[in-house]
């Protein structure tokens, strides 16, 4: 090793792929060391903010199809671990760190209500670790590293969900369910990686993709694919594997639910996309069959069954949780079309649904803080008592349905476009029909908020500004991205192109 190769003399711009992931990881132990909840909040916010700025800068760098490659420890891939940023991950990185940055100011007052003060420092520590894990899963180009980060995010998520136990003891069983299912998912994923490693002898995704491309008929590769799809399917809550989701979303503290709903399943879907389109070739017969006979039927089932279940929920949080399962269905549907437009539909819905669900769950957190519960019977007539909060719910609800002029419309539009390109007109009809189910469950809540007589005996005031502002930042983002699709649609298209052009080059 000559010293020139060892000391490349990197500038701060070259370090961005790493810094975006490492900053939250550094902040987490610092929170514990300082042991003060105000400092912990500040650290979390700063780490998250800088992570967002770095991700955004990277997205601008890779918008024209470039790839940023960062070699950890100076070990060149395929031997060393590589962080590999292209349009697809930069976009998801931006979503995750951006949502986290908006949610943290909201978190202060919300957890002050839902969690005892003693645990606040540890809450921020776990939150940062979860953020690190999710960012790492997305940033890395090493298959085993994905698993490591996946576990970091999952383990901290279990703790975060269990913190809801102070308000409702059922959070403990929900967290335990999630623990079992999440662990099974991660185990399946790592078994799949093990199979692929045994065949290819490499863990670097680009290298793996090259070696797999000639191994279509290899049984071990096929088994590895099956394990990875099922494992990630559990993490992403694809319809029959979604059972952990309603419980943990319902009983977790509101901040955690808003954060997880907007980011955790999205990271899992990103990994699924990365493996299906970059590591494995979408032209493989077994993969095409998976798309056509497994993923598409399940996606359609999710769109209808989960939406139908959502219609009959009496707890607003659980209603939105089932709606999340249905929305994951749309993303999987986009993936299963295996076309450029389909893939961009999945990626853009990932973003649009992320911001939409974050608004809705933040509103639920605000309701919870004022009326003490999220059952619809507590919410009668809140539209008159908390008008600003309820208006945010309406905006989020419209975006969830996919009304023109909101972010949700754009993703449904691209998805329908993708279906029509494949001459699947019946699929386009099904997408519209399932959106009608969303109309029903959103209307159900709007009716409760605005049409029912409020309980005059209770005096309610709006939640503090530190909660209202983040909520409305995202609500306005829902509308903004419904009109200005330059950033979202362009990144999603570039991402889909780079994913489909023979994988990560």
């Amino acid at each position, binding site marked *: *090793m000559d*010293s020139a190769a*060892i*000391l*490349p*003399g*990197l500038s701060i711009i070259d*370090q961005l792929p*790493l810094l975006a992931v*490492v900053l939250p*990881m*550094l902040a*987490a*132990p*610092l*929170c*514990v*060391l300082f*042991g003060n909840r105000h400092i912990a909040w500040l650290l979390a916010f700063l780490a998250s903010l800088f992570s967002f700025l770095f991700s955004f800068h990277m997205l601008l760098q890779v918008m024209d199809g470039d790839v940023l490659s*960062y*070699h*950890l*420890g*100076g070990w060149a891939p395929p031997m060393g671990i590589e962080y590999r940023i292209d349009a697809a991950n930069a976009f998801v990185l931006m979503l995750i760190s951006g949502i986290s940055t908006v949610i943290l100011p909201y978190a202060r007052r919300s957890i002050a209500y839902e969690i005892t003060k003693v645990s606040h420092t540890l809450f921020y*520590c776990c939150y940062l670790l979860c953020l690190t894990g999710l960012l790492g899963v997305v940033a890395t180009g090493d298959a085993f590293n994905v698993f490591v980060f996946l576990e970091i995010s999952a383990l901290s998520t279990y703790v975060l969900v269990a913190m809801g136990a102070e308000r409702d003891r059922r959070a403990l069983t929900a967290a335990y369910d999630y623990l079992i299912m999440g662990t099974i998912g991660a185990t399946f994923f790592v078994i799949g990686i093990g199979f692929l490693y045994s065949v290819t002898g490499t863990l670097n995704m680009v290298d793996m993709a090259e070696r797999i491309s000639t191994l279509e008929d290899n049984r071990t590769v096929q088994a590895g694919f099956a394990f990875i799809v099922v494992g990630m399917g559990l993490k992403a809550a694809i319809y029959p594997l979604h059972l952990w989701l309603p419980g943990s979303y319902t009983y977790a503290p509101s901040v955690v639910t808003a954060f997880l709903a907007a980011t955790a399943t999205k990271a899992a879907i990103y990994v699924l996309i990365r493996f299906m389109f970059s590591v494995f070739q979408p032209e493989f017969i077994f993969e095409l069959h998976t798309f056509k006979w497994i993923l598409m039927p399940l996606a359609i089932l999710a769109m209808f069954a989960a939406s139908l279940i959502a219609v009959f929920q009496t707890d607003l949080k659980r209603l939105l949780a089932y709606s999340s399962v249905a929305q994951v269905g749309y993303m999987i549907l986009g993936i299963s079309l295996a076309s450029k437009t389909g893939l961009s539909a999945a990626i853009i819905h990932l973003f649009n649904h992320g911001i939409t669900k974050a608004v809705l769950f933040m509103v639920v957190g605000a309701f919870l803080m004022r009326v003490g519960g999220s059952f619809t019977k507590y919410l009668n007539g809140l539209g008159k008592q908390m008008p600003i909060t309820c208006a945010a719910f309406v905006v989020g609800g419209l975006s969830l349905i996919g009304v023109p002029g909101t972010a949700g419309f754009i993703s449904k539009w691209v998805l329908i476009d993708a279906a029509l390109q494949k001459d699947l007109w019946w699929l386009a009809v099904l997408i519209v029909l399932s959106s009608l189910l969303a109309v029903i469950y959103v209307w159900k809540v709007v009716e409760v908020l605005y049409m029912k007589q409020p309980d005059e005996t209770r005096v309610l005031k709006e939640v503090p500004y530190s909660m209202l502002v983040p909520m409305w930042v995202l609500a306005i983002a829902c509308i903004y991205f419904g009109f200005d699709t330059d950033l979202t649609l362009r990144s999603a298209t570039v991402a889909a192109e780079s994913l489909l052009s023979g994988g990560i080059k």
Partner: protein
Amino acid sequence: MRHHLLLRVITKLLVGPILIFALYVQFHGEYSPGGGFQAGAIFAVAFILFGIVFGLDKVQEVFPPWLVHKLSAVGVLLYAGTGVYSLMLNSTYLNYSSFSPSNPISGQHWGIILVELGVGITVASVMVAIYYAFAARPPVINDEEW
């Protein structure tokens, strides 16, 4: 355990050698089998054994819970900090060679030793923290009521 003279004497004899053996495994990690994780686990075993025989209060006098929590963070910070230090030297994250550009091999040694020390501290304190968490739980049924 007041009556178990043998257990108490043997434990007192063993705690010291266990700690030394842990340090041996720790600082041989970069040459021979061993390293931070194993060393941390062995180090924690000394405290857990002491706790089992002499009681939770006694072991917490030696190694109070607040210290356990802080140390588990210190270890992670040491690991991550080693990486940040290499960033400050204008190199990639955790590129140990940058610690001593004239002699990269010795830089690699220093890097590994620091990182393994971080791992060892965190593993030892997390193991002890888990033991404390379980041992400090109030029994569901009181011993007298059996």
